């Protein structure tokens, strides 16, 4: 069994320290938004989770291309791991968004472009696992999974653009004024926001790495058995 890399351990420790730190920052350091009240604080982790999910899916597409070029199993593990972790982040983004939407929009769910795009993306990547589970050899899973991951990430901008052409009620982040939940960010809010983004990116890298190692160990285990 391969030893746990030191850098991964460092990622673990940093994630464990920085997530509570970011939480404290959000809860006590940022001002309460004037119109929305405390519930606005969901926003920091909500956007960060959506960002991490999206980043995971893009990375999965890149890793898929890496597999098709090199035909090395390791790229497939990366692609698979990124999608699995990205899926969880996407789910967090949707759920936290619903918690925010309930008091602000007075409903748990609206057919808003970003919500719908995120939900569709979750479905696209759930189908990725159904596709893989229907294939017999790891080579076929890797090859067809890579093609699917690349095509999927290619359609995401189209999906987003198409839904965006409908008029959106979702607040556009970092804007000057607006209605329906849009707000101005004070410097403190901006700072907490960017820290959250960075921390979630770190957490994404950490989790993908762990999932990758799991795939590696599973394969080693199978070969030894």
């Amino acid at each position, binding site marked *: 069994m391969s030893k746990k890399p030191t850098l991964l351990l460092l990622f673990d420790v940093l994630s464990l320290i920085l997530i509570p730190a970011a939480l404290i920052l959000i809860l006590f350091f940022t001002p309460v938004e004037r119109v929305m009240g405390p519930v606005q604080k969901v926003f920091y982790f909500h956007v960060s989770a959506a960002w991490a999910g999206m980043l995971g899916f893009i990375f999965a597409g890149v890793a898929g291309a890496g597999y098709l070029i090199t*035909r090395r*199993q390791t790229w497939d593990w990366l692609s698979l791991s990124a999608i699995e972790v990205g899926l969880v982040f996407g789910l967090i983004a949707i759920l936290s968004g619903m918690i925010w939407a309930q008091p602000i929009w007075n409903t748990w769910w609206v057919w808003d472009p970003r919500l719908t795009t995120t939900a569709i993306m979750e479905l696209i990547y759930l189908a990725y696992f159904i596709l893989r589970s229907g294939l017999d*050899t*790891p*080579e076929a899973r890797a090859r067809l999974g890579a093609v699917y991951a690349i095509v999927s990430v290619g359609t995401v901008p189209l999906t987003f653009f198409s839904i965006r052409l409908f008029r959106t009620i979702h607040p556009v982040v970092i804007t000057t004024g607006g209605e329906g939940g849009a707000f101005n960010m004070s410097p403190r809010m901006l700072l907490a926001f960017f820290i959250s983004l960075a921390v979630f990116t770190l957490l994404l890298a950490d989790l993908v790495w762990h999932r990758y190692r799991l795939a590696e160990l599973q*394969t080693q285990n199978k*070969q030894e058995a």
Partner: protein
Amino acid sequence: MENQAASHALQIAVRGLVKRYHYHPVLNQLTLDIEHGAFCILVGSNGAGKTTLLRILASLSRADEGRIWIGGMLLGTSPLLRKRIGYISHHTMFYQDLTAIENLRHYARLYALQDIDEKIQAGIQSTGLTRAQHQPVRTFSRGMQQRLSIARALLHDPDILLFDEPYTGLDQEAAQSLDQKLNALHQAGRTILLAAHRPQRLISIASHVAWLNDGKIIQHIPTSRLADIPDLYHYLQEAA
């Protein structure tokens, strides 16, 4: 090892071929040379990788490692190389709703042949299916389909023929007619590589036997020298 000059004299030259399933090599650093006009039987137990090897040679499947020269040209460099190969398996590759003629015409057009009608008629006549030529392939017996399948593979006049278990599902009469057909093709100077689970019936007409075991060709000898290799000889006795 990869002496290209030597490969030019050969019809098929395989060097260091590796193909993995479940990341486990089915073909493991396989090397094989087939000369012009040879009729080589590929023997080996079920799952030894005979089909995999033939599919890679026909470029239906992708090798993980290694190089293959067909008539001195590196496989995978040009799709035109596929013109030199005829591939026959126990799957007929026919469309059930189309007639024998229509199926052959479709394949002739895929190869962009000239004088299609004459070639198809010649093919149909060689199979003895003239009377059934306008009937859907669906109505054909297994033996008729197999004969038509050989006519399909010969349409574009390839100099290399790959047969994968062509005897599967044939009755005695159809099998004998296939024996004659193979012998005629061999006499006409085509290079033949034929994978068979039970190769006994072919030993008298083939020129070589190649034994695939553990992902490698462990014996490759003229049929006349079979008696010198007791292992292979016994293997063939048992397989029959």
